[in-house]
């Protein structure tokens, strides 16, 4: 009986010692170990995506965000995660500026593309509605950010159900010379042309062409 108790105690002690000695988050390498560093690579990744966005490389910016946070559309932690908020904004702006048609074929594998490439008008509107919702929330969180306001106005002007409000906002910013993207001026030119405002169209197109690397985005019918 005593021996059984002693054997049990020894077994329990060895098991406990084993548990204590076993490294938790560690690398074993040549007999040494050290705690694993946690590096949030998204910080540099989002900064790079923001730079790509500002340089007008929308597919590259959006692609890198989706590769880093594949299910960002359904990520619930964004309200508490400033990096995720910035990532969302990059993706929403890129979506708005490309009219919901991100050219991601070379950026992402098939399974990550979701509806981002906007294969038809329905998908494009789905993407744009998501962009409007995302940028509206961002604008509520960050007041007085004109770049954000301009992108939200652009997204609205391209989205069913928001077009009148988007136009109004684009006009207000253009009047103060505060539109910050050539796409916004191109959209304004399109809307003005549709209203028969030839001079307004020309003025907006001139700003678009001056701001754009690729003046192809400034082609407007009418």
């Amino acid at each position, binding site marked *: 009986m005593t021996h059984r108790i002693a054997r049990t105690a020894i077994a329990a002690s060895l098991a406990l010692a084993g548990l204590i000695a076993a490294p938790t988050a560690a690398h074993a390498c040549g007999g040494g170990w050290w705690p694993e560093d946690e590096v949030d690579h998204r910080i540099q990744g989002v*900064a790079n995506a923001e730079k790509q966005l*500002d340089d*007008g490389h929308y597919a590259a910016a959006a692609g890198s965000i989706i590769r880093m946070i594949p299910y960002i559309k359904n990520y619930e932690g964004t309200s508490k995660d*400033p990096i995720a908020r*910035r990532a969302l904004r990059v993706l929403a702006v890129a979506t708005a500026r490309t009219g919901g048609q991100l050219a991601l074929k070379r950026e992402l594998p098939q399974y990550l593309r979701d509806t981002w490439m906007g294969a038809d008008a329905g998908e494009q509107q789905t993407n744009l509605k998501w962009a409007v919702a995302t940028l509206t929330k961002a604008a509520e969180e960050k007041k*007085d*950010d*004109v*770049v954000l306001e*301009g992108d939200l106005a652009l997204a609205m002007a391209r989205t069913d159900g928001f077009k009148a409000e988007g136009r109004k906002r684009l006009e207000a910013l253009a009047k*103060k*010379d*505060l*539109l*910050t*993207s*050539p796409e916004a001026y191109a959209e304004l030119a399109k809307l003005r042309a549709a209203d028969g405002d030839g001079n307004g169209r020309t003025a907006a197109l*001139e*700003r678009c*062409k*001056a*701001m*754009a*690397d690729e003046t192809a985005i400034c082609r407007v019918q009418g």
Partner: protein
Amino acid sequence: MQLRLPAALLIAFVAAACSGRGEGTETTPSAAPSASAPAAATPSTTASTLAASEPRGDADKGKALVDQYECGRCHDGLAEAKAIPVESHCTHCHQKVMNGGFDHKPDHAKWKENVEHLADVPSLQSAGKRFRYDWLVDFLMKPRDLRPHLAYSMPALDLTREQARDLATYLVSLDPAEPPNVSFASADPRHGRQLLDEKGCTGCHTFSGVPALNIQPGTAKAGPTALAPDLRHARERLAPGTLLTWITDPQSLKPDTPMPKLPLSADEARDIAAYIYTAELSPAPAPTLVAMSPPEPLDRKVTYEEVETKILGKTCRHCHGNPDVAVGDGGPGNTGGFGYQPIKLELTSYSRVHAGMLGSDGERQSVFKKGEHGTPHLVAALLERHREVAGEDDPDVRGMPLALPPVPMEDIRLLMTWIANGRPR
């Protein structure tokens, strides 16, 4: 190296100093107080003739203003001021770059080139022992360049005269001391002039407005030598007794001063002080004022990349930064600082430059909006800095870059050309 020459000269003159002709500085009883200090003092100027004409302010309010205007972000010697982390402290950050103290080793070489001439700012230690109150009030209201070799100058703060009095009252309360009453009646200013050369003073100090001295300061823009003020301003800043004490034993007034203690006899010190205080000064050269009308654009296309490389990315983005990547601090020109309200102007990217700034009415406006002279605001701010340096300023436009040398005119033309071209990317 430049400090070593005066130091060697000083050592060589130690013996002479020890056997000086006088036994001490001649002091006189106070004369009747006078309301004004002379621009060019008479040889018998005494401290008591410098009684302040400016009403005193409230030192407690002044102490609060030191924090509000973030004086400690540039100046050392303010022990009671709020502690500023090194990343937000202009000079400490620049000194850390120069010492290779940041972790981003690959950037050090690039950063050093930009900040090596921006690593020295005069300390305000024991200001109460040194500065005349009236001068401080005037200087705070309208700062001017006192140190011709220093790249920085004091920024024009957004102060009322009452606030300037409060600040000056606080500063003169730091380690205060009454300057001794002195007379230069029996001093020999001509000998003092000669001593400026002989003792090596002019190896560091410029003395504008007097006939050229034999030795002229070098052109070093960094290090303690760069802090040496133009001696022209000494009579405005310091009471005669303070000047004499400063020449005799500068560390007794300001322990952290880089000014060496000179091996001077009392008579020699007095002769030098007399010359500095009484030498006839020719008027400062009339400033060449820059016109505020827009400069003529260049006859070529200019892109944003060129403007960013030569102007915006070189200087402006330091104070007009991106708060998202700097723990919420976008710099004084964006999220506020140095007592300036936030104007939300970020100059870090093409789109941000186009996003404008908050105007005086609180409404956002384009930085390309044309002002009174038909000049875009962004260009007007750069031109205004030229005018500030020349002694003229427009209270409606803050000269930029703040407290730094003006952007060269050819670069301002470059910016104007980019704007005239339609601001191409």
